[in-house]
Every structure is written in structure tokens, then in C-alpha cells.
């Protein structure tokens, strides 16, 4: 496989792959001619408005929709009782009792977070639907609210789901190597009482939306939406709606950003399906920003407690143990997968061999979570980076030196982690050097020395972006689950007029798949990407797709492109067989594809235009020799990565195929009077192996970086003691604006993956490197100023930094070092 990969790369270098060609998507998007879910309209459609819970936790005493239904222009409503009657709860991935949680399209019996949909109202206009929603009378009996995950297991804590009888969704222990031995053998043990990874989300600018049609004759639902993983939506919705999967047709074209936040909209989509069927008309749903913030998808909030790190005096880190407590909000939905996904990057970039993680996930009265960009790995990587900096500071060592001493070395690649994951390739130390050079590390250290009122800090964030999941990892949570491996599909055909049409199983949200796929196919067929029509978006009727199709978890550059490559190579062979036969019986290997012709290598004059190939096979096949009558010029390829089932007992196995590296470095200036943190220099170095479209790769690096910057300094989903979300819109949930950011410098190296034939690695999630770098920089600034404060939270707004300055002991007390 590696040889062919080598050959392939040589071939690709002379072609379109590797060049930043103009994106196919751009022309329509810069003219406002993209088609986003909210742009889809149908005659006679009704607009749905969800009546949402004003309480974080309450019993639904009564629901009265009579006044709403009596209002002029109202088409009808959907109530919790109807939902409980017409649907089954969505399936749960966890083991009992967590799996006994019942999750419906609308709140049945109880509301469990503010913004939870309780009743749906449909009317002739958006405004009228809202008018009617205001007339729906829901009587609630408020219940005690659970906001702090650390209380979830207390005897006196309210239990959210009586069916489960506990707030614990999943818990288990992961024990690799010999942690206790390492802690005994170590020169020192660094103990950290508690760290908190804050709740935020990448908040795609386009909220969720759908237009759902129901064909009464066939029972067919057509769901025009922006769900980024329709295959999974279907698996949730089919059984709940009691219809076969093929009755659910998902159609998307342009999606205004997903970042994982558009994987768990199946409850609202299910409600729209029920309404379309009940009211016999198309149903249009627009989710507004406040709806999305209160009731759609947040990132996982996580507490790390009782951390113990075994270290030698020279900074060598032998291992660590930790209790991780994950807060998934009111319903698990995609969870508890977050309870294992982190294990793809268990030791971060470091050579720790002894690790014990006691992982527990609980529900709270907050918005449910979804796999937000960097899903679950980001939290684990933040832990490893925080440990690294805290250890360095406590031992009086240089954070750069400690990293270089403990990084997995390039000559150790491929490297097997303590839990059996295989880091395919990379050179972390070299990436770090490039990052430090980009921010002029020595110059920054010099500026730090001369105190000019501001406190200067330098921070590093080193992370991995693990791509192409082995879904077998789900069996480490629940051995009953029948998921493993991964797959992706592409089809390509050469049509009657020589048109080449490529369809993908993926569901892009801005990653430029049309363009990148066309580059790979063009190189194989010897044409220009312009001559390859890649169908925009995804239609589960017309796009061939597999169980794991979709755009998520940094995998397109491997799964998506391998499928494209496989299908296109099949087509290439068919064209060459056909041409060989037509051009005097030449062997396919004697035919070369060039400029839209299939030519005999020995006689370039003997050439068959693609148009002729398409015409013969599709419209003139009687002239074909028998031995090529099987040629259809319509080829499908399913890429299946080489995974095996992980070992449940040892919780051991390879969970992902490729690992892209991100090393970020930044310089901050802190205003000591206000605690305001200013980002004055920033560099992001990325290594995702071979880059098919460098400009798109760099764009992904910019985007992931800024999501991290926002989370570190500006963005938080904060709740009060009553479970009221305090940052329910962009007025209080401050995402970075153009003025909030410095120039983001980028650098890269290419360490081709030996496990993908193109040498590519999935990328784009960035592992939250910016959060780690900024936390490290803030702590560095404080320490240089003589404070013992420890950055113990991933989110550091001005007041928190000011408190660290005024009361350093509060956080310093979290850390102790014993000989």
C-alpha cells in the first residue's frame, strides 16, 4: 500500500492535486445564489414555531392549544401527547441504566432544559405562527434544578430521568500501563485538585432549518435540511417514526457551517415530519439564534479532578491519573460517544506510558451537547497541555524544554500509544520550532523581561487532530453496539456527451469538497477539474452513500478522497479497456488518458474522445466487442479503512487512522488593573500530511484557531443557579469579530500518512490548540509577574484573570508537589 502511495504522490505532484485552484462552490456563493435550507420553499407550506420551555426543570401539568388553533391563519399544532402516541423514543447508545433515558421530538411529561421544544404550532406565516405560539397555555410545576455536574451524583440531587433512576449516563475506568508504579517510582508527584473545561460551541452562523414534505401516496418524507450527518439522522428518526429508512429522503445543498452542531437536530426534524403528515402540507422550520443557543447543541463541558502526575526532576513525565466528569446536558443524543472519543488522543503528544482515567458522564438541566469541532479530544488535549505547563512551572522548568523532552519523536513513528492507537507520522518538535520562530520567541521573552505596565505571556498549544474514526470504539462503551470500522462512497460516470459526473457520500459545510474531489479525479482521468461536474451537496436518493457517510471527525481527506480515487480509477480502467478494444484491441495498460482522449501510448494518433466512449456505451453498444460489454462507465467505490475491532477487556485498539499535528504559539499582554487579555501575536503550524488544496487547508487552520481563541477569551454558555442560560444570543455570547483578532500567522510541514494512499490526513478540527496556547500564555504572564496563580479554567474573561491577579492563592491552592 505504501509503494502505491508513493507512486500516487509522484503522479499527483504533476497534476492538479496540491494546487490551490479556485473553488467550484464560490461562484454561486459570492452571488448569493447558494441554496441553504432556509431558502427552500414550497407552495402551501406552513411555518412552524416551537413553544419552548421557560424552565430548566419542571413537570408539565397541562397543555392547552385551543386558543392557538382558533387563531386565524393557524393550520394546526403538535403536542407532547401526540408525540408520545405517534413515535417511539430515539434509541440510546449507552448501557443501562443510562440507555433507559427516553428522548422524544417534544418534551413529554417534563421539561429538562430552558428552550426545550414543548409544543409546535404551524401557521400561514412566520409571524402568525409566533402569534399562535404565544396563545398556547402550558402549566408547569417547577422542579429542583441541577446545574453543577459535580452535584449530579449526590443523594439529594434531583434526578432528571426517572426511567434511568440516576443522572449517570455512562461511567467506566480506563487503565493502561502501571500508574501506581509510576507514581511510586517518580521523583515527584504533582497533584492538581480540579480543572474545568468550559461550555461553549462553534455556533455556525446558519442556524438549523428544514422544509419537510410528505407524499401521502408513497409515505415518502423529503427533508430539505442542513443536517450534516443524515445517515445517522435516519437511523434515529426511522424507528422513532416507525418508517423504513428509505422513506426518509435527506436533501442538502449549501450548509452554513456545521462544526458538529448540526448532527443532533433529529428531534425537531421528527416533529416536522409528524406535522407534514398530520397537516397534509409542507412544513418550514427556521431555528433562530436564541433557539440554537438554548435548545440545540453545546460542546461538552468537563471537569478533571484529583489529577496526579508522575514526573522526574528533569521533567520527564511517566504517567498520570485523573477522574473526568463530563456534563452532557439534559439528553445524551450522540452521547456517550464523548466518553471514548477522547481516548483517540489519550496521552496527547507525549510519551506517557502509564495512564488511568476514571470517566463519568452525567446529565444536567442545560442544553444537550453535540460533537462540537474537536469533539471530546479537545478536552483531553487541554488536560495534557495544562498538566505540561503546570508541571513545568512547579518544577521551575522551561515549558518548551519539557515539551521537547516528552513529545513523541519523529523517529518513533508510527507510534503506538498506551491504549493501542497508532500515531501515523509527524515531527512535533520541528513544528514547535517553526511556531516559536513565527512569534519571535526570543524577542517576546525579551519584551517580557522589560515590564512596561502590561504583563507579557507566551504560550504553546500542541494538539492532534485524529481523523477517520474506527466506530468500533463505541463497543468499548457498550459491547452490544453493532458499530465498527468506517466507510465512504463515491460514484463517477462518463455520460453520453462525454460529461463526467462525480457524486459524494459526504455532506460538506464549507470545506470545498466539490473542488478537492475534482482535483483528485481530474489527475486520474487526465482532464481539468472544470471538466468534472461534482454534484453539490447531498441527496440521499441520488448520492450513493454508506452507513458512516457524512462530513465530521476530520476524515474527508482520507475517506472521501479515497472513495473518489477508487471510483475514478475504476472508471479509468473501464475507459482504457473500452478504448483498447475499439482502437484495435490494445491492452488497457497501453492506453493513456489525456486531454479528454483515450490514446494508444504507441500511437497517439489512435485516440478515442471521452464523448465517443460515453456515446458508444450508452447509445451505440451493439458495436462493442463481447469482452467489453460489461463496461458501464458508471462506477461506484466504497472505501473501507483497515480497522479491526478493539479489545473490550483492555479497552485497547487503534481508534483512528490518521493524526494531523497542530502546534500553536501565542503572545498575550494582560492589563494588570482590569485583567483584560490582549492577543498580540499568534502562530499556527499545521502538519496534515499531503495537502491536496493548500489554501483550503490553511483556511481550516484559521477557522479552527479562531474557534479556540473565542472559547479561551470570549465565548461561554453560562447558566445561573436556576438553569437560565445567560448568553442566549450574540449580544452576550461574544464570538470573535474582525477587530478582536491579531493577524494569524501560519506555517506547515508535510509528513505524509503511510496509511492513506494519497498521503493525506483528515484535518480541520485543530484540537482546540488555541485554547491551550492562550491558557498557557496567561499562566506564563502571571508567573513571570511573580504570581503563583494557576489557570484552572479553559475560559478566561477579564474578571477571572483579575481574580487570579488579586487572589493568586485561590488557584495556587489547587496544586501541590510532593517529593
Amino acid at each position, binding site marked *: 500500500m505504501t509503494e502505491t502511495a508513493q507512486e500516487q504522490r509522484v503522479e499527483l505532484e504533476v497534476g492538479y492535486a496540491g494546487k490551490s485552484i479556485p473553488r467550484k462552490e464560490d461562484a454561486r456563493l459570492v452571488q448569493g445564489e447558494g441554496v441553504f435550507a432556509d431558502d427552500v420553499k414550497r407552495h402551501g407550506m406552513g411555518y412552524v*414555531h416551537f413553544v419552548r420551555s421557560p424552565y430548566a426543570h419542571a413537570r408539565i401539568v397541562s397543555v392547552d392549544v385551543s386558543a392557538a388553533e382558533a387563531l386565524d391563519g393557524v393550520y394546526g399544532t403538535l403536542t407532547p401527547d401526540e408525540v408520545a402516541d405517534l413515535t417511539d423514543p430515539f434509541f440510546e447508545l449507552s448501557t443501562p441504566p443510562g440507555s433507559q433515558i427516553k428522548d422524544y421530538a417534544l418534551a413529554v411529561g417534563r421539561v429538562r432544559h430552558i428552550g426545550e421544544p414543548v409544543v409546535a404550532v404551524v401557521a400561514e406565516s*412566520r*409571524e402568525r*405562527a*409566533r*402569534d399562535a405560539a*404565544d396563545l398556547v397555555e402550558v402549566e408547569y410545576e417547577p422542579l429542583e434544578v441541577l446545574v453543577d455536574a459535580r452535584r449530579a451524583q449526590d443523594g439529594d440531587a434531583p434526578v432528571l430521568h426517572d426511567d434511568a433512576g440516576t443522572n449517570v449516563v455512562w461511567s467506566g475506568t480506563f487503565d493502561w500501563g502501571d500508574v501506581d508504579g509510576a507514581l511510586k517510582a517518580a521523583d515527584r508527584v504533582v497533584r492538581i485538585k480540579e480543572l474545568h473545561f468550559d461550555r461553549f460551541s462553534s455556533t455556525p452562523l446558519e442556524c438549523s432549518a428544514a422544509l419537510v414534505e410528505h407524499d401521502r401516496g408513497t409515505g415518502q418524507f423529503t427533508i430539505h435540511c442542513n443536517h450534516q450527518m443524515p445517515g445517522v439522522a435516519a437511523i434515529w428518526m426511522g424507528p422513532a417514526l416507525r418508517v423504513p429508512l428509505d422513506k426518509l429522503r435527506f436533501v442538502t445543498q449549501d450548509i452554513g457551517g456545521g462544526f458538529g452542531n448540526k448532527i443532533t437536530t433529529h428531534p425537531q426534524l421528527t416533529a416536522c415530519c409528524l406535522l407534514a403528515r398530520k397537516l397534509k402540507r409542507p412544513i418550514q422550520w427556521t431555528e*433562530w*439564534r*436564541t433557539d440554537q443557543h438554548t435548545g440545540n447543541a453545546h460542546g461538552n463541558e468537563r471537569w478533571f479532578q484529583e489529577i496526579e502526575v508522575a514526573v522526574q526532576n528533569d521533567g520527564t513525565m511517566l504517567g498520570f491519573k485523573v477522574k473526568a466528569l463530563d456534563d452532557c446536558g439534559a439528553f445524551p443524543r450522540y452521547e456517550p460517544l464523548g466518553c471514548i472519543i477522547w481516548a483517540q488522543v489519550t496521552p496527547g503528544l507525549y510519551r506517557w506510558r502509564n495512564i488511568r482515567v476514571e470517566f463519568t458522564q452525567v446529565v444536567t438541566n442545560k442544553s444537550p451537547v453535540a460533537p462540537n469541532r474537536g469533539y471530546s479530544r479537545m478536552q483531553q488535549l487541554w488536560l495534557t497541555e495544562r498538566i505540561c505547563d503546570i508541571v513545568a512551572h512547579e518544577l521551575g522548568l522551561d515549558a518548551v524544554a519539557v515539551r521537547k523532552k516528552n513529545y513523541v519523536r519523529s523517529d518513533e513513528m508510527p507510534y503506538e500509544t498506551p491504549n493501542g492507537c497508532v500515531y501515523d507520522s509527524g515531527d512535533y518538535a520541528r513544528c514547535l520550532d517553526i511556531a516559536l520562530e513565527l512569534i519571535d520567541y526570543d524577542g517576546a521573552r525579551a519584551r517580557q523581561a522589560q515590564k512596561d505596565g502590561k504583563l507579557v505571556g507566551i504560550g504553546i498549544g500542541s494538539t492532534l487532530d485524529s481523523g477517520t474514526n474506527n466506530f468500533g470504539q463505541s463497543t468499548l462503551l457498550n459491547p452490544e453496539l453493532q458499530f465498527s470500522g468506517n466507510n465512504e462512497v463515491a460514484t463517477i460516470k462518463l455520460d453520453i456527451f462525454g460529461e463526467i459526473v462525480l457524486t459524494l457520500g459526504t455532506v460538506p459545510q464549507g470545506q470545498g469538497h466539490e473542488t478537492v474531489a475534482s482535483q483528485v479525479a481530474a489527475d486520474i482521468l487526465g482532464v481539468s477539474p472544470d471538466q468534472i461536474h461534482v454534484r453539490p451537496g447531498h441527496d440521499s436518493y441520488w448520492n450513493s452513500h454508506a452507513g458512516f457517510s457524512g462530513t465530521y471527525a476530520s476524515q474527508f481527506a482520507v475517506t472521501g478522497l479515497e472513495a473518489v480515487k477508487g471510483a475514478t480509477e475504476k472508471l479509468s480502467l473501464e475507459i482504457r479497456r473500452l478504448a483498447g478494444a475499439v482502437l484495435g484491441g490494445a491492452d488497457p495498460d497501453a492506453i493513456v488518458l489525456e486531454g479528454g482522449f483515450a490514446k494508444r501510448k504507441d500511437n497517439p494518433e489512435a485516440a478515442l474522445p471521452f464523448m465517443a466512449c460515453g456515446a458508444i456505451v450508452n447509445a451505440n453498444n451493439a458495436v462493442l466487442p463481447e469482452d467489453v460489454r460489461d463496461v458501464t462507465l458508471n462506477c461506484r467505490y466504497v472505501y473501507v479503512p483497515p480497522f479491526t475491532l478493539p479489545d473490550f477487556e483492555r479497552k485497547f485498539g487503534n481508534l483512528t487512522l490518521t493524526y494531523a499535528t497542530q502546534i500553536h504559539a501565542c503572545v498575550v499582554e494582560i492589563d494588570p*488593573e*482590569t485583567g*483584560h487579555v490582549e492577543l498580540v501575536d499568534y502562530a499556527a503550524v499545521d502538519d496534515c500530511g499531503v495537502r491536496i488544496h493548500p489554501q483550503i487547508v490553511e483556511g481550516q487552520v484559521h477557522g479552527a484557531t479562531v474557534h479556540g481563541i473565542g472559547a479561551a477569551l*470570549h465565548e*461561554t454558555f*453560562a447558566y445561573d443557579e436556576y438553569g437560565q442560560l*445567560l*448568553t442566549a444570543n450574540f*449580544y*452576550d455570547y*461574544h464570538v*470573535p*469579530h474582525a*477587530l*478582536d483578532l491579531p493577524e494569524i500567522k501560519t506555517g506547515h510541514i508535510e509528513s505524509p500518512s503511510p496509511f492513506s494512499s494519497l498521503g493525506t490526513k483528515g484535518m480541520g478540527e485543530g484540537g482546540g490548540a488555541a485554547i491551550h496556547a492562550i491558557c498557557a500564555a496567561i499562566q506564563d504572564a502571571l508567573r513571570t509577574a511573580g504570581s503563583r496563580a494557576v489557570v484552572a479554567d479553559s475560559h478566561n*474573561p*477579564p*474578571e477571572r484573570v*483579575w481574580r487570579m491577579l488579586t487572589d493568586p492563592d485561590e488557584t495556587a491552592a489547587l496544586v501541590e508537589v510532593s517529593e
Partner: protein
Amino acid sequence: MLLAELDYARPGSIEEAVTLLAGREDARALAGGQSLVNVMKTRVATPELVVDLNGIAPLRGIASDGGVLEIGAMTTYSAIVDSAEVAGARPILAEVARTIADVQVRNRGTIGGNVCSNDPTNHFPPLLAALEAELTIQGAGGERTVGTEEFFEGVYMTAVQPGEVLTKVRIPAKGDARDGWASVTLGKDGTGIVNVAATVKDGTARIAIGCVAATPVVVTASADETAVKDAVRAAGLDPPADVHASAEYRRHLAEVLAARAVRDAA
């Protein structure tokens, strides 16, 4: 995002506007709409009649007679930023207006709307309080002019009564006074956590602090850092706490920013 039903009127004169506003209960004047429309989207505000002041030419414009700068209530932030009169008479108004929200909002938002909504995070209430501006209100009964202490009554509440409109704001020209501004916001030019405006004349600083109470808190002190901080401390602020800042932190910022605003004025 979806407004409740309402009636809409676009009068061409102040008199017409006043009549319309007086004629209906729950009539609301619509200025730039950059705050009101957003509150209406939540249906927390549901005026039955919206009286759009954008058609009333006399409410726009900036004039300076040397001694006093007169700004029409419907003058946009952008117009203030670009105004030669403002630059000449009281440049701080333009410097602060330039940091309000963003270009689109500055193109629509007006100084009148800003002070009449009197959201604690707004820029103009503390600034006008520091500059001792006078505000002219017109109703059926005619015109009256009030100072800022009288004008700002509470959160979202001002001396402008039902059936009245704010017509203009008069600000004394700079003369030998020096003005300053300091704030801590969510990101650059974001929502204010605490805003402070100061004007210094003959060694005395008049300081107005925003977002620490229902209305701007004005303190005066001799223009040196210790005196200013002492004066702010003496004001015994009891600021609101929210997700962005505790009362304690706002109290601290009030002192720090007051000192900075005075320094900025120097």
C-alpha cells in the same frame, strides 16, 4: 425574531409625531431602531403603534454657534463621527461614537435613540452626563429643556413622557475643558461592562460612570488619580452583577476607568 402586530406611521413633522404619540396608548417613537426593534423581536416590547421619526428632517443635523453644539435627536452616530462641527466643538463625541457597535449600526442608530433607550451599557448617557448636556423635549404642551440628571430616570426610562419626543441635544463647546473616555467591553467595541466619561476643567474632573446603576453615576473630584478613585469609592456604588462582571469587579473597574478617563482627558 418575529414582531407582534403593530401599526406604523411615518410623520413628516414633529407636531404630527407628537399628535400621533399622544393619540394612542402604547405608542412608541422609533428612532434608529437598533435597540427597540431587537426588543420587539423578543416581544418583551409590543407597542401598538410605532411612530417612525426618520421622516422628520428638522430632527437631523448638527449646528455649532461656537459656544454650544446642537445635535438633532435623529442624527446618526456616523454623522457625528464625520461632523466637522463636532470635531471643532467637542471631538470626544465623535471619538466615542466611533466605538459604538459597528458601521451598519452607526449608519442607523441615533444619539436620540441612544439616550432615550438608556440601556446601562449605552455610550451616550454617561458621556452626555459628563459633558453636562441639555436635552430638549417637545410635547403637545410645547418645549422644555432638562439636564441629564433630570433626563435619565432609570433603565429604559427617561423624562420623555408619552406623547413627547426628544428633539435635540445641546452640548457646551469644549472651551478649555479636556475630555476623556475609558471602558472595558466584551472584545473590541463590544457590549460595555463599564463605561466612564470625564471632563476636566480648572483642575476639577466631572466623571460619569455607566453600567454601574440604573442611570449614569456622576462624581466630581480634583483631577488627580487618588482623588478620583477616592471620589468613586465614596459614591458607594452598588452595581448590577451579570454574566460578564460581578458587582465587586464593576466597582473596581469604575475606579480604574475613572482614573483612566481623567488621564485620557489630560
